[in-house]
């Protein structure tokens, strides 16, 4: 399994030293599997599906261990491969339903082979002599006496695009968007200024906010805006901010230049 991690890949893949797992470079789990399979450097029909399943699962576990968020597809494939692995390792029971481990493995190998075949086909296709690049049409065409039944032209694509755009436009104009309360920066700044004014002790940011929260829907906007506002207030020396560790609570307290009534009035005005 080790060579896998040293696999040199031009623009995607993984690099051991930097511990980068570039899952974004792969187009889905099958693509990743195919990449892993190629590193076995054997014909896809003679691939060890078991080894492949293990490599894949290891890859996914590694990605998760460094907190890479994986699309559900990748996890589903990992689960399926784990299942496949168990089917391959445990002898088939006479009463087992569904395909045998071997059948599942063949199906997987088939899909990989088919995907690879399509990749190769795509490469061959794109390298053909292409019109406008390698071969050229008449540069100064003359107009033929019309061969069409209709004097008008449009493609199905034009038609469908027009229809889809129209319907979507119409549908959207009829949608009433629910009014969503958003904390503006000015809002958050004012709220913080009002509250922090008298605080000598470190207090968690959340503590300030929760009082103002009417519902969970506002939580995200409240946190985002007040955090941004608090950074600005810190820069202005009106606030001090502290966080002990990543993801730990954020504490706030009054800064060296406390907020006086005049500043507060100014903020009120700014908020409009």
């Amino acid at each position, binding site marked *: 399994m080790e060579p896998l991690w040293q696999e040199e890949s031009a623009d995607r893949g993984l690099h051991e030293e930097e511990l980068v797992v570039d899952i974004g470079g792969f187009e889905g789990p099958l693509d990743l599997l195919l990449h892993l399979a190629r590193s076995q450097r054997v014909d896809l029909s003679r691939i060890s599906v078991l080894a492949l399943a293990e490599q894949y699962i290891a890859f996914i576990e590694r990605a998760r261990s460094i907190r890479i968020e994986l699309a559900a597809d990748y996890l589903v494939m990992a689960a399926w491969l784990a299942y496949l692995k168990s089917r391959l390792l445990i002898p088939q029971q006479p009463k087992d339903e569904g395909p045998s481990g071997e059948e599942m493995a063949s199906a997987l190998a088939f899909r990989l082979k088919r995907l690879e075949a399509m990749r190769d086909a795509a490469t061959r296709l794109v390298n053909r002599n292409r019109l406008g690049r390698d071969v050229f049409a008449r540069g*100064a065409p003359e107009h033929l006496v019309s061969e069409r039944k209709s*004097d008008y032209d*449009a493609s*199905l694509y034009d038609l469908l695009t*027009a*229809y889809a755009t129209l319907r979507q436009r119409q549908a959207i104009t009829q949608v009433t968007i629910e009014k969503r309360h958003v904390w503006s920066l000015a809002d958050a700044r004012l709220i913080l200024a009002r509250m922090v004014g008298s605080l000598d002790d470190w207090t968690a940011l959340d503590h300030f906010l929760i009082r103002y929260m009417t519902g969970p829907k506002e939580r995200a906007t409240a946190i985002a805006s007040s955090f941004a506002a608090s950074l600005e207030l810190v820069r202005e020396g009106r606030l001090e901010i502290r966080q002990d560790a990543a993801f730990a609570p954020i504490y706030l307290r009054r800064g060296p230049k406390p907020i006086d009534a005049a500043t507060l009035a100014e903020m009120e005005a700014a908020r409009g």
Partner: protein
Amino acid sequence: MAEAQKYLPGLPDDEGDLEEVFIDPGLAEEAERIAEALVFASAQPISETYIASRIPRGVDVGRIMSRLKASYASRGVNLVQVADHWAFRTAADLSFVVQTDEQEVKKLSRAALEVLAIIAYHQPVTRAEIEDIRGVQTSKGTLDVLMEAGWVRFRGRRRTPGRPVTFGTTRDFLDHFGLEEIRDLPGIEELKGAGLLSGRVPSNLHIPVPVGEDELSDNEDPITQMDLEELGLLTPKAEEDD
């Protein structure tokens, strides 16, 4: 023999290209092919100087062009010289195959495309319904264009007050757009899947399954000869409003 003779050294031409002595026939043929391709692919008549710069060194461009011209002389396409430029032109006696007046195929306007699409999906559909879906008035000209294109037809009359005419698509419509039947038009899922509808499709968006062209719907009457005459009177070209 005759072939070889062509490449024997001749007198230097007007431009005094002294290099041209004993030309390899293969080279001449190569030059001819290049010149032919260049003139063919060029949007404008192409200068002899340019051709000369592209053909193998030492080949007399003038001679190459005369040879090419001669070999095309009896064909359906001729190589013609315009000043010191070259171009291919349809043989004069065949000019009937090409259009002299630049009557290009007309592109359908966006409005016409929209109306056509609505008729295709929502048929049988009345003009009022088309306008309701589009949210704007449809000019008579738009429907006329679609009729003229041969893609839209009167289908019948709705059994509602006023007996409005219903529109539908034609066989030519299916042929032109490569559809076997009207029900082959992609539905909402397919439009979404093909990226034509964006992901955030409102839930109130309904795309009907079009009704086949030949079946009249329950509340439709067939169009009679009478109706057609009446409609013919009702749709005079003159009152076009756009």
